[in-house]
């Protein structure tokens, strides 16, 4: 080793965040189209977000698996081949708020990928054979999910957190899927797959006006109407005993906690984001440095703020070795308590602030990153320019603001806690810390 200590180079001032321009058009059938130019690679990203709240769980899931399974003119294989011929691909997914169709293609394929999308939106046929195939596949898929600890822990947490709200159960049971018939899918499609309230986001190597014209020419005739259904507000987390879910012989325990949070547009949002980062929202946080880098209890603990249409929550996740489940819970509660009762240090707050500002900039440096953010924002009724407002809030939030947000939202007394693991080994240690109930 050399004798002279080397000095860490200073940072050059960060360029102000440069947002790509959004061009937007509302088609007469009610579809909102947003086109954003980023020509870095000759591709386009396509996202279509349709409001889908209150759709039947099993039928919604099946619809997302069979939307591309054929129209009157095209088979499953033909749809996939047509998309591929322009370097394209499309897939659908569903959650309690929305149906999302995502894909991409070579830039020269924009018209063709939108044409195929339009054919499917207008004429998805849900043929019996294909529906039968996808039904079996989805049942198998759910069975595999139910063998994964992350899935089981999430299911238990959602149930505990949301009670009777539609967010409580987000995966259908196999027998519900088995009961889905093609006619029900056609009916659900006819009722809900419409442009009202839907947003199409296009990002890529094109002239925005031409992209909007193309979208209008291709999707302007998509059947208007439909309804924009929204969910009642999700309940706030109601703390209670720690729920222990038994998974015999599990070599790790899946620790999950949920705490209250606020939507992106709430005045406390930026302060809470920073408080969450300082607590456990990135690697250089108190929680990660404690239970991973100091104690070696876990590999990838993380804490994120999850925004759904009907409510926001802070979600903590850590997979910890079975024999340190009690100590890991103890340290987690300690770190939350420290956040809630003492203000953060100046330096650690600045570090979290710079991280947040930097990663916001990194997030909009790719076509897919821009597409994801623009779509997420559109789903909350926002546009990309919200990022500028948010950035400004992040810059100006004070230490007192962060301390207040931490006290209000991160107090461990407000947490809903679920631990999935081998109950015979973890019940006693967890019970020394908190009241428990075993499932």
């Amino acid at each position, binding site marked *: *080793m*050399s004798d002279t200590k*080397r000095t860490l*180079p*200073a940072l*050059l*001032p*960060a*360029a102000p965040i440069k947002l790509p321009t959004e061009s937007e058009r509302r088609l007469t059938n009610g579809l909102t189209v947003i086109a954003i130019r*980023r020509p*870095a*690679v*000759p591709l386009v990203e396509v996202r279509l977000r349709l409001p889908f709240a209150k759709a039947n769980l099993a039928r919604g899931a099946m619809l997302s698996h069979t939307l*591309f399974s054929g129209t009157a003119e095209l088979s499953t*294989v*033909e749809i*996939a*081949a*047509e*998309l*591929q*011929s322009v*370097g*394209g691909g499309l897939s659908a997914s569903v959650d309690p708020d929305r149906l999302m169709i995502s894909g991409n*293609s*070579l*830039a020269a*394929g924009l018209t*063709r990928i939108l044409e195929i999308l339009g054919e499917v939106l207008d004429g998805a046929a849900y043929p019996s054979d*294909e529906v039968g*195939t996808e039904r079996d*596949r989805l049942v*198998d*898929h759910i*069975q*595999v999910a*139910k*063998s*994964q600890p992350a899935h089981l822990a999430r299911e238990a947490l959602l149930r505990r957190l949301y009670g009777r709200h539609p967010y409580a159960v987000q995966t259908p049971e196999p027998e519900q899927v088995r009961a889905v018939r093609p006619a029900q899918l056609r009916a659900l499609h006819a009722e809900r797959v419409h442009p009202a309230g839907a947003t199409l986001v296009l990002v890529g190597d094109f002239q925005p006006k031409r992209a909007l014209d193309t979208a209008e020419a291709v999707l302007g005739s998509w059947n208007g109407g439909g309804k924009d259904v929204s969910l009642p507000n999700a309940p706030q987390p109601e703390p209670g005993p720690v729920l222990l879910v038994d998974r015999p*012989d599990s*070599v*790790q325990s899946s620790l999950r906690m949920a705490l209250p949070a606020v939507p992106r547009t709430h005045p406390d949002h930026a302060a809470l984001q920073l408080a969450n980062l300082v607590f456990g929202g990135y*690697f250089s946080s108190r929680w990660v440095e404690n239970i*991973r*880098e100091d104690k070696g*209890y876990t*590999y990838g603990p993380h804490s994120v703020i999850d925004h759904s249409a009907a409510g926001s929550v802070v979600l903590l996740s850590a*997979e910890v070795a079975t024999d340190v489940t009690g100590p890991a819970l103890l340290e987690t509660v300690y770190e939350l308590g420290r956040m809630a009762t003492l203000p953060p240090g100046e330096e650690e707050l600045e570090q979290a602030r*710079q*991280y*947040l*500002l*930097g*990663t916001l*900039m*990194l997030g909009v*440096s*790719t076509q*897919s*990153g821009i597409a994801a953010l623009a779509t997420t924002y559109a789903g909350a009724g926002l546009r990309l320019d919200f990022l500028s407002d948010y950035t400004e809030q992040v810059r100006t939030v004070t230490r007192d603001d962060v301390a207040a947000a931490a006290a209000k939202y991160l107090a461990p007394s407000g947490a809903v806690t679920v631990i999935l693991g081998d109950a015979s080994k973890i019940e006693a240690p967890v019970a020394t810390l908190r009241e428990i109930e075993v499932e």
Partner: protein
Amino acid sequence: MARRIKIPATKYPVERFTLDNGLRVVLAPDRSAPVVGVAVVYDVGIRSEPEGRTGFAHLFEHLMFQGSENLEKLAHFRHVQGAGGTFNGSTHLDYTDYFETLPSGALERALFLEADRMRGPRLTEENLRNQVDVVKEEIRVNVLNRPYGGFPWLTLPPVMFDTFPNAHDGYGSFEDLESATVADAAEFFERYYACGNAVLSVAGDLDVAEATEMIKRHFGDVPARPAPARPDFDEPDLTSERRESYTDRLAPLPAVASAWRVPSPIDDFAGYLPFVVLAEVLTDGDASRLVERLVLRDRTVTSLGGYIGFMGEPFEVRDPTAALLQYHLPPGGDVDKVLRAADEELERLATDGLTAAELGRVQARMATHLLRDTDAVLGRALRIAVLEEQRGEPELINDLPRLIGEVTPEQVRAAAATLTPQRRASIEVIPGGGK
């Protein structure tokens, strides 16, 4: 069908030079967003770890984050993230990478951090024990506590290969991890983490002259150490079929994966590329040969995948490597029937070939994937670094979509003809998660 779409290319300028100490450097400027990706790749991976030290290359990767000459433990993470950046590292069969994505004003800081650990990590007993614990939890999350953990990337190599470098568990046994010492780590660093064995790359918002100056300033005095001789890891091809099975206590459904040796990605790139394309012809999407047959028609398979290399990175692996096909089956599914049907499809492809239209659409989709990988500055930095490390050809990044597009139907047909049952190694997962 419409006229065949033209496969576009990128035109990233690629600059390369070598410092006096032997460190190779590649720069790919692109000022379309104010961010940079920085990568350092060392030419050592899972295949180089010593017997009795399975998992050591990966464990050592963790130790490279535990402080270095001028940096305390935790400092690396804090300096990157406090500059608005993200970081990680990963261990592969033939290389280990360390990387950051940052706002471009933080480029010099990232170079400082990488140079500092290239001069030498702080290897202490306390950090070693801590990271052995962390790695054990990583293995529990990714392998031991979940169904299909390590399938097939850890479970198929020992069926296909006979020598330790190619066959062993790259995540490592707990016994080997626990017996690792600080002296082992110091020796591993001394041998493999020589700057002559490394490549530094930067992609994104940079000025070549300025970046070159910064790189010289921070890396110029890293002591020159030559690269160790790289052993030849080659093994003879299989002459008869190999097949094994194991019970996965958590898996609810059967699964199987097969692999065949393919030409050397480095020495015979032209002979290798048709296999990269073939994997996609067979498995990419609902219009692919095997999805159409096994998933949609026969319904003997729930999902399947096909790719080159046990870690699925066709342009970041050396010989010996393989083409893989893997299948998840429905309850009570018949593995033999699935393998037979796949053989039939391979034989049909080998006999009848495929049309230019079928090949063209697969090549177009592959071009999209390749271009998409490199839209992010980090994707670009990593690819050029490994292309330089393994081939001395970082500019290949711009040519890959075109080269994929030039593969002919006859080449794909001929590649398919080599995937015969006699050359196949397979591993079957027997479900033990009897719910």
